[in-house]
């Protein structure tokens, strides 16, 4: 009998601090309101000085564990995808492993592929579970991405993450198919030791984001013999609110399908956390039988597409044991640019 691999549990975390494009624009002499409109971003999330990708990954993973009764010692693998791992050498995943008490009988590694490192981790866990190598795998996409001061990316680069427990028992949603489209395309990159990434301006559009997302989506739709109307929800990588809306339209998705997973307007671009958080927001309200198309994009470049079906198990799922994505957007605190710059380590401190 074919094992149905899928999502057993999920958890999300977004820091409570926000800053608006207007406030950023005010400092750099840019029309922030116009930026906000152009990007379809009302505000972006900012991590507190005591948060980083490790603490975000831990909280998302703990939220994931709170909602299920899986014994953490049965987790065989943990992969954390991010482009802002606190260490270049020393994994984020080991701290997560200790913090959810999965250590020591498991394998861990950190992933990097710009914004699709988290979904690449999901695919890896699918393989490990599906082949019987592990009983449960954890895939986390989390980031505390930075944009260079005054650069366009500063208006959107934000922080957040989501974790997924992949297994084959009591899955609340099956991942029926995954397809990836990958090329070597230098649209956005960051060299070792550099604080801020660089990008190719308009090159990041058509030849990068749109080409890979469209091919990823189309590739999956072909292989599953489905079209947009077969899906209840769709979520695409969201570096801003505009790009995924355009993709959705081009693929034939309506506002009702896309609305729930579109978080960029209120949290900005959480990079490796973007599609994972969008998927979490969808699962927060999905019903049995709902079908979800999720397509992540990572610069460099590639897309991961998933065909996900919600099961009856979701009605028994203890979602209330951890905050929903909506609840994570309550109790916000808006910052001025100076405090934001202090929090994000953009101010040169004396002493070192």
């Amino acid at each position, binding site marked *: 009998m074919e094992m149905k691999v899928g999502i057993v549990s999920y958890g999300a975390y977004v820091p*409570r601090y926000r800053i608006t494009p207007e406030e950023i624009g005010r400092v750099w002499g840019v029309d922030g309101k116009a930026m906000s409109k152009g990007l379809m971003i009302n505000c972006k999330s900012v991590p*507190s*000085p*005591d*948060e*980083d990708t*490790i*603490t975000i990954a*831990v*909280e998302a993973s*703990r939220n994931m564990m*709170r909602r299920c009764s899986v014994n953490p010692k049965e987790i065989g693998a943990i992969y954390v995808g991010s482009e802002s791992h*606190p*260490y270049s050498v020393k994994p984020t995943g080991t*701290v997560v492993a*200790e*913090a959810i*008490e999965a250590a020591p009988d498991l394998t861990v590694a950190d992933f990097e592929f710009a914004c699709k490192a988290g979904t690449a981790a999901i695919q890896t866990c699918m393989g490990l579970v599906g082949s019987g190598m592990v009983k449960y795998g954890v895939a986390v996409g989390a980031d505390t991405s930075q944009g260079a001061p005054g650069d366009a990316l500063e208006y959107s680069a934000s922080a957040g993450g989501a974790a997924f427990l992949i297994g084959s028992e009591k899955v609340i949603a099956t991942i029926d198919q995954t397809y990836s489209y990958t090329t070597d395309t230098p649209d956005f990159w960051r060299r070792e030791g550099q604080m801020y990434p660089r990008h190719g301006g308009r090159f990041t559009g058509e030849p990068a984001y749109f080409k890979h997302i469209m091919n990823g989506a189309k590739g999956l739709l072909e292989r599953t013999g489905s079209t947009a109307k077969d899906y209840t929800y769709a979520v695409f990588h969201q570096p801003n609110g505009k790009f995924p809306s355009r993709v959705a339209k081009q693929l034939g998705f309506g506002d009702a399908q896309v609305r729930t997973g579109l978080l960029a307007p209120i949290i900005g671009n959480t990079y490796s956390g973007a599609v994972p958080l969008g998927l979490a927001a969808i699962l927060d309200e999905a019903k049995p039988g709902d079908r979800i198309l999720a397509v992540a994009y990572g610069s460099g470049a590639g897309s991961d597409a998933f065909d996900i079906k919600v099961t009856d198990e979701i009605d028994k799922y203890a979602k*209330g*044991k*951890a*905050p929903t994505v909506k609840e994570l957007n309550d*109790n916000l605190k808006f910052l001025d640019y100076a405090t934001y710059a*202090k*929090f994000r380590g953009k101010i040169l*401190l004396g002493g*070192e």
Partner: protein
Amino acid sequence: MATAPRFWRENPSRYNLVGFKCNSCGRYYFPRRSICPVCHRRSVGKIEEVKMKGTGKIFSITEVHDALEEFTLQKPYLVAIVEFDEGPKVTGQVIDCEPNDVKIGTPVRATLRKLSEEGPSGIIHYGYKFVPVKEKAP
């Protein structure tokens, strides 16, 4: 100054709130100790490692303005003595709230955050801090 082993050794308590229960007298303690302060040698062999749930109440709280160097970016910040549901008390920062939101008696829960880092090239230390618990049940 490299202090990796000193911090690493306490991670089970700092990450996962591992304390202990003395099975000779039934009292809970945090953090770990070699013997129960009440039972002394009678407790040897009867110490059971126990994880605190992480929920508790604020016992006393202050807003720190004159901070140690590691905490410069967060000052002023709140520090409290928190009484765990199980009984033991601990000291820790209270975060993600305004000073007016919290006082003696406010329920809180533990979460993992960065405590400090040994400079830009050193080890990062993580441990518990406390967030106020919202009114409705999580």
